[in-house]
């Protein structure tokens, strides 16, 4: 039995780490939803696009190489240089900011005051468009992403736990790094939104558009800012997932895993996104270990999150942390 308990503890820890990844993606959704009421279906594709752009820049790939070659009969593929990881990340951040600006300039500024469902449809279109652009820009083959993050079993934890319990925990270094980076990211976002002028403006816009206008806040600027931040969060998520399992189309599907996280945590709560992600990460791993694998034939991780979200929806439609829905009569 103690063995069983130790396994469960290890599974739980790994679940927490996986949950951090879900939280990161969900965070991007919450940021945009809070500020503009847009449910951004393209968040997952943004993570894919950011990761592809990062790899492309790192490897000195020529963007739109296939298109250029097909049109002009040339045969260029690479600039012939390699960009250091940190610089490549910075450049990718700029690309994501430019994307944020373009999306607001050509899509959402034309759709001001439209129904939420129309804005949602626009983001679905955006997702397909961005996916196509990403393939056209950088090619559709599976790429490996390496920005120098450590991977593989953490020997120190393995050693310490083996000393203490006689059983060495398997914790991946990448998961630890992801957790630390995610924590720093969230801390940074909280500090930014609490103690800076733009952060305050951002919260103001999230709260009341009309009032925000009346104190001199440009909604457009805030939307570009928040899409840029969401783009940055997407990049971080893209780096983590991309390092783990390669940069490929399925990366964009992590958005679907973020949905139950949002239902659990509420669409408007940043702490909710974090805790929701952790609950789902731990929940699905533990469920698989304790019930799924022994009694249900396994593979419960695929559906556990959705069932959990459904149950939460029945009892708390606004999620665990969402703002209470009060109808004034």
């Amino acid at each position, binding site marked *: 039995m103690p063995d069983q308990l130790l396994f469960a503890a290890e599974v739980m820890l790994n679940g927490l780490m996986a949950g951090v990844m879900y939280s990161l993606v969900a965070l991007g959704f919450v940021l945009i939803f809070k500020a503009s009421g847009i449910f951004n279906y393209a968040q997952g594709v943004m993570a894919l696009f950011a990761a592809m752009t990062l790899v492309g820049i790192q490897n000195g790939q020529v963007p739109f190489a296939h298109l250029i070659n097909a049109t002009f009969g040339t045969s260029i593929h690479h600039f012939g240089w390699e960009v250091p990881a940190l610089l490549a990340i910075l450049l990718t951040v700029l690309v994501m900011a430019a994307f944020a600006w373009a999306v607001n300039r050509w899509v959402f500024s034309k759709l001001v005051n439209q129904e939420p469902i129309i804005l949602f449809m626009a983001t679905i279109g955006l997702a397909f468009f961005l996916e196509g652009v990403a393939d056209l820009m950088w090619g559709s083959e599976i790429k490996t992403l390496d920005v120098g993050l450590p991977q593989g079993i953490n020997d120190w934890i393995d050693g310490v736990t083996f000393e203490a319990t006689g059983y060495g925990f398997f914790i991946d270094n990448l998961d630890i790094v992801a957790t630390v980076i995610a924590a720093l990211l969230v801390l940074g976002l909280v500090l*930014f939104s609490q*103690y*800076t*002028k*733009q*952060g*305050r*403006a951002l*919260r*103001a816009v*999230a*709260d*009341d558009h*009309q*009032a*925000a*206008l*009346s*104190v*001199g*806040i*440009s*909604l457009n600027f805030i939307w570009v*800012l928040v899409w840029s931040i969401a783009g940055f969060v997407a990049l971080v998520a893209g780096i983590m997932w991309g390092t783990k399992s390669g940069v490929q189309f399925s990366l964009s599907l992590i958005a679907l895993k973020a949905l139950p996280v949002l239902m659990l945590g509420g669409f408007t709560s940043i702490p909710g996104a974090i805790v929701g992600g952790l609950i789902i990460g731990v929940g699905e791993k533990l469920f698989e270990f304790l019930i799924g694998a022994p009694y249900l034939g396994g593979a419960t991780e695929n559906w556990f999150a959705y069932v959990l979200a459904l149950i939460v929806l029945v009892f708390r439609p606004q999620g665990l942390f969402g*703002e209470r829905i009060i109808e004034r009569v």
Partner: protein
Amino acid sequence: MLDADTTTTADGRTIGGTVLDLRNITLRFGGVEAIKDISFDIREGEIRAIIGPNGAGKSSMLNVISGFYVPQEGEVWFRGKPRPPMKPYQVARQGIARTFQNIALFEGMTVLDNVMTGRLGHMRSGLLTQALWWGGAAREEAENRAAAERIIDFLEIQSIRKTPVGRLPYGLKKRVELARALAAEPSLLLLDEPMAGMNVEEKEDMSRFILSVNDELGTTIALIEHDMGVVMDLSDRVVVMDYGKKIGDGTPDEVRANQAVIDAYLGVAHD
């Protein structure tokens, strides 16, 4: 009519030249004319009231001044220059602050944070310096925080500084909204029914604050109000609107004696 640019009121305040001049404003919503060819001015340092029955177009007028509505005809002159069509946030940055009839506060934020949003126009440092708290960002935050605290003291809301606005009672919310508008140090302050829905005591408090804002901070104020007693006591000059038209303009005494105004408020016997 006085031809001098500056006059002094009975209670010793100085009224200066024209700050805002509305010239032949017409505003339509589809086929409905909410404002029909209205002109009036607001002078530096005065309290200017806009009154009229429900649906007279008072709020629309205020929305034209603050840029929320763009009139189809007419010009808004601000500080001696015609103002091109502007977004509300651009108008706000020019120094025109406002409150709303149905209170538009940031409910999830504290009173202090709400007031701080009023200071946004006074904070100069850019996105990057702010994000990294570089150079002047910290000092600027401190200075603006001090300014916000002065306004909070001025309106006597120190005790609720850290309370989320959503939890406050109606009367206090109205005061916080005034505080946020004042924090911008506006040259023109627009108040849309600052006393609507208040009890007598709250109305007295609010009147006192409006008077001392005008007197001590020297802020020019344009306000919409229903309570005739309050309007007559507070304001230097009054514009009366009815069905989108201007039917009276002058000192409270002049307006009170105006037959068209009496008819609009009390009704006319049609026989």
